[in-house]
C-alpha cells in the first residue's frame, strides 16, 4: 500500500446479493393489500350483522336473501345469457382468426388484421362504450330493431381479443409438420383440421373461452352504456345497489361473483399448465 494513501473502508459483500433493503416488506404488504379488501368483503358477507366491521356470528342469511331477490335472479340470468352467447361467438371467431394469422408466411394486411383484432384492448372502455351506444342508437332508430342482441354483439366484440391470445399462443406451439404428416397420410384438409389441428388446439380454445366468459361477466362500463331497460346484468345491478346504499346482500352477491371469476381463472391456469406438458 502506498504511503499516505488513505485506507478505504471495504464493505463486506452482502451475503445474499439478491436482497434489497425493504423490498420484501413492501412486496408482502402489496400482496396483503391486494387481497385484504376482497378478504374483508368475503368474510363479512358471512357476517350475521349488517355491519362491515363488527363480527357477530357466521350466517348465510344474506346469501339466502340474495338468492330470493328477484332483481338479483334476473340480473344473474341475463349476465349468464350474455356471457354465454358472447363467449361462444368470440371463441369461434377468435379461433378462425387465429388459424388465419398464425403460422403463415407474412401476407399483406397481416399487421392490419392483427391490429384490428386487438383494437378493443387499445381504446379506453368509456370511449368504446359511448361510441358503441351512438352506433346502436342510430341503428335502432333506422331499423326499429331492439333487444338484447345489441348487448350480446358488443360483448362479443370486446371478448374476441381475450379469446384470441391463448388460442394463438397454443397454435404457435404446434409445428406445421403434424398437419403435413396428416396430409401426407391421405387426409384431405377438412380431415386434417378435424383429426389433428382441432384436438391439439383444444386446450387453447378452452382457455380462450374461459377468459372471454370472465371478461364478459365482469364488464361494467360498456354494459352500463349500451344495455337497455330490462337488460340489467349482475355488475350493473350491483352498481345500482351501491349507489342506492350499501346493503349486505351486495356483499353476498359480490362474493359469489368473485368466486366464479376465481374458479374460471384457476381453471384457465391449470389448462395452460397441462397444455405445456
Amino acid at each position, binding site marked *: 500500500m502506498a504511503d499516505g494513501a488513505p485506507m478505504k473502508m471495504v464493505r463486506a459483500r452482502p451475503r445474499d446479493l439478491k436482497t434489497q433493503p425493504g423490498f420484501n416488506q413492501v412486496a408482502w404488504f402489496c400482496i396483503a393489500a391486494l387481497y385484504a379488501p376482497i378478504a374483508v368483503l368475503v368474510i363479512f358477507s358471512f357476517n350475521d350483522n349488517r355491519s362491515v366491521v363488527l363480527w357477530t356470528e357466521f350466517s348465510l342469511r344474506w346469501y339466502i336473501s340474495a338468492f330470493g331477490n328477484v332483481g338479483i335472479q334476473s340480473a344473474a340470468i341475463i349476465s349468464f345469457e350474455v356471457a354465454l352467447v358472447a363467449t361462444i361467438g368470440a371463441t369461434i371467431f377468435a379461433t378462425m382468426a387465429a388459424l388465419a394469422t398464425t403460422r403463415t408466411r407474412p401476407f399483406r394486411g397481416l399487421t392490419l388484421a392483427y391490429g384490428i383484432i386487438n383494437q378493443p384492448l387499445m381504446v379506453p372502455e368509456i370511449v368504446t362504450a359511448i361510441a358503441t351506444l351512438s352506433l346502436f342508437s342510430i341503428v335502432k332508430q333506422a331499423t326499429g330493431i331492439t333487444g338484447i342482441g345489441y348487448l350480446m354483439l358488443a360483448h362479443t366484440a370486446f371478448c374476441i381479443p381475450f379469446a384470441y391470445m391463448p388460442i394463438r399462443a397454443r397454435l404457435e406451439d404446434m*409445428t406445421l*409438420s403434424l398437419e*403435413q*404428416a396428416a396430409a*401426407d*397420410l*391421405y*387426409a*384431405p384438409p377438412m380431415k386434417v383440421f378435424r383429426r389433428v389441428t382441432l384436438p*391439439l388446439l383444444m386446450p387453447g380454445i378452452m382457455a380462450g373461452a374461459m377468459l372471454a366468459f370472465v371478461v364478459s361477466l365482469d364488464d361494467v362500463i360498456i354494459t352500463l352504456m349500451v344495455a337497455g331497460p330490462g337488460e340489467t346484468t349482475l355488475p350493473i345491478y350491483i352498481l345500482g345497489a351501491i349507489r342506492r346504499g350499501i346493503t349486505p346482500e351486495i356483499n353476498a352477491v359480490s362474493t359469489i361473483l368473485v368466486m366464479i371469476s376465481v374458479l374460471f381463472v384457476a381453471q384457465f391456469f391449470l389448462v395452460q399448465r397441462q397444455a405445456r406438458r
Partner: protein
Amino acid sequence: MMERIDLQPVSEGAVRPAVAAENVTKIFGEGPDRVTALDRVSVQIRQNEFFTLLGPSGCGKTTLLRLIAGFEIPDLGLIHLDGQDITALPPHRRPVNTVFQSYALFPHMTVAENIGFGLEMLGQPQLEVDGTVARMLSMVRMEAMAGRRTDQLSGGQQQRVALARALAPNPKVLLLDEPLAALDLKLRKEMQIELKRLQNETGITFVFVTHDQEEALTMSDRVAVMSEGRILQIGSPREIYNHPAHRFVADFIGDINILPGQILSVSAEAMSVALAPNVTIEASCTGIDPREGAVSVAIRPESANIAQMGSQPGLEGVIENIVYFGTATNFHIRLDGGEAFTVRTPSGTDTTLDFSIGDRAVVVLRAGQARILID
C-alpha cells in the same frame, strides 16, 4: 460452372422410373432475399431402388424431397410418379409417404392409431386396418407398444413408429428426410441395416435424404450428390467413391488427395497426366470432355503406397505427420512440389513401422486409381 454428370445414361424403352423430376426449379423469397433452392434439377429414380440424395445443408435435397411429397410446388419443371404427372397434385392425393426428420407423430393418438391413420384416411374397414397395423408393429418389432402414447417413447422407438406409419399404406415411394439424424451412433448403425432390410423385403422405392456420406454409401443402390441446388453426380456408391467427377464430390465423399497435372495425351477413356517431372499416371476421365493443358487429378489415400526413397518411382516428399488409428495409419506428406498428400496404409503391412516424422519418402501411385476432376 458446374455441370451435371450422369454416369448411367437412361436408355429409351427402359422401365418407367418410379420418380422422375424434369428440370425442376424452386425459388424462395423475393428481391434481395431470393434463394434458388433447386436449379433445373432432373433425376430419374428407378423402381425398387434405394436412392439417396446426399449433400451438405442448404444443397436443396430436402426441398426436392418435399416437392416429391407435395408440400411445395415447383416454380418450373415437372414431377412424375410412375409416369404420371403429379407436379401440382396436393399431398393427400399422392401415393407417396414421408418419414419426417422430427418424426411428426400425432401426440394425441396411440402408437397403433398413428400407424393406422393413413389406412383410416383411405377408408379401409377397421378389421383390415387392425390387421395391417399388427403386421407393421411386428415388422418394426414394436408389438408391445401398441397402446402407448407417442410421447412416452424413446427416440429410436418413435423413429420405428414413424417408419411403420409411413409403410402401412403400402406407398409406391417412401421418402425419408434425414430420419436417423437424431439417433446415437450405435442406434443409427442398427437402423441403417434395418432400413436396408425393409427396403429389400417390401420392394418399395426408397428416396433417402442425408448429409452423412458414410450412411449414403452404406445403404444406397445409387447416390445423387447435390450442392447449391444442383445435382453434381449420380451413380452407385462405388462409382461415386472411386470415380468422383467433380472436385466437390471428391471432397465430400471420403478423404481425397487432389494434385495439379498437365495432360500429355488423351485416349478414349483415360488421359496421360504428368504430375511431376518423370511421374506420369493414367487417369480415367469417363464422361468428361477432354481438355488441354492443366487439370486436377484425384487420388484416394488408400490408392497410394508409401515407400523408401529410391526404391520405386513416384512423388517424393517429407513426412510431416503419422497418425495411427487402429485399422490403418495415415501418413501426411509434404510433396516436393508443395502440395499436401495423405497415404493410408492398412495395419498389418510391414512398411508402417519403417518411417518417422521428418523422413523423406516416396509416394507410389497404383495404376488405374486416379481420376480427372471437373472443378
